[in-house]
């Protein structure tokens, strides 16, 4: 929606967080965590480029609104408890 010039600041000053940008819509494959196997080592959280994995009581929770499906978490998980599944199969 184009804002009227009167509503704009003088120069483009960004003030809204990018959480408005749902990059999860980009995904074609998604990570699926096997919670039984998860040892809560937090390596997946550590390596997520998008900070799309949160730690909730020490447990990694993947925020699918933002996860782009890069697969780093699955690749790096020492327990191999994250598998990448195609979106159209999930």
């Amino acid at each position, binding site marked *: 929606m*184009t*804002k009227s010039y009167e509503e*704009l600041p*003088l*120069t*483009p*000053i*960004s003030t809204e967080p990018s959480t408005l940008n749902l990059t999860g819509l980009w995904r074609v494959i998604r990570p699926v965590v096997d919670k039984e196997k998860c040892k809560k080592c937090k390596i997946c959280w550590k390596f997520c480029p998008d900070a799309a994995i949160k730690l909730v009581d020490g447990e990694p929770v993947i925020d699918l609104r933002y996860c782009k499906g890069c697969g780093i978490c699955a690749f790096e998980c020492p327990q191999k408890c994250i598998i990448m599944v195609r979106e159209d199969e999930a």
Partner: protein
Amino acid sequence: MRTVMTGNYASAYGAKLAKVEVIAAYPITPQTSIVEKLAEFVSTGELRAKFIPVESEHSAMAACIAAETAGARTYTATSSHGLTLMHEVLMWASGARLPIVMTNVSRAMAPPWSVWVDHMDSIAQRDTGWLQFFCESNQEVLDTIIMAYKVCESSGVMLPAMVIEDAFILSHTSEPVSVPEQELVDSFLPAYAPEYKIEVGKPMGFGSLVKPDQYMEFRYKAMLGMKEARDRFLSVEQEFKHIFGREYGGLLEHYRCDDAEVVLACAGSVASTAKDVVDSLRARGIRVGLARIRAFRPFPHQEFRALGAKVDGIAVLDRSYTFGAAGAMFTEVKASAYSGQNRPIIKNYIAGLGGRDITPKIIEKVFEDIQIVTKRREEPDVEWVDVAGLPRRWR
């Protein structure tokens, strides 16, 4: 304090009195003494500022942009190739709506190499969104810098300005200058207090990416700033006159134009010489006048339309040339006068490039010539003045 000083020192004193906080500058002839003087002021503590001896003019402007965004009043100075090197970031400064003030010591562009006056460097920046003021005297240089900060920092303007001195003729020639008291300047020019600045704890992004569906609105706002600059400039000058007792005639200084048949329009130090010629011609009963273009941006359209309605001919003297077209000042004067009912004959004279002296005799011949073409009511070509090899003799 009344003293004698060069245009460059006048710039330095102007910046000092404006209490600039960050100076980032790179040396280039003939601007060097501005920056040297300011470095001296900073080193003695006379001016409480940070001086950044940057490694190029592009970096000078980039550093000023960053410092100004962080809320500091900044200043720089340059000339010729330094100014044109800055061109990319001049555009940035105005788009970012930063009221930076800069002295440009207007000097010819190479090749051929030249250190002498002409306006090609300044004119080439007319699209950048910077306010442009051409000065006739060293006093005007000092005063205009102080006025420029006030105009530019107004919330309705927030655009940068360049104060233009002619190379060597003003920059290195000493003239009597009154240096106002700091307290008086402080009463006229408050500290810089922008609405937004980049600061710790406020996670804002300055200068982000904008899609085609929103870009135009930002540019429109910048245009409004330049429009506001017109009126703001006039009112600031009146305020200045009230406090300091000096004024310069607004955007377009009219000298003996009232009942003139023809006028000469020009900018910079040549106007000084031209005023003398006007006086001597007037003494002989010839009705001529001088319109000194003080502000090239915002261009005094209204003033030229009004003037064009009253006179029969306008000689526009450009100390620069826009290849493939005509002198830039001529083009704008003609456009302003076009919409009027009475269209005067307007002729373009290209003179004084690369520091070529524009003598009183040359100016007299320009006046003679404009009178002739005006009487003939012919559409004249651009005339290059005092070029060896052309049939016309001007000296």
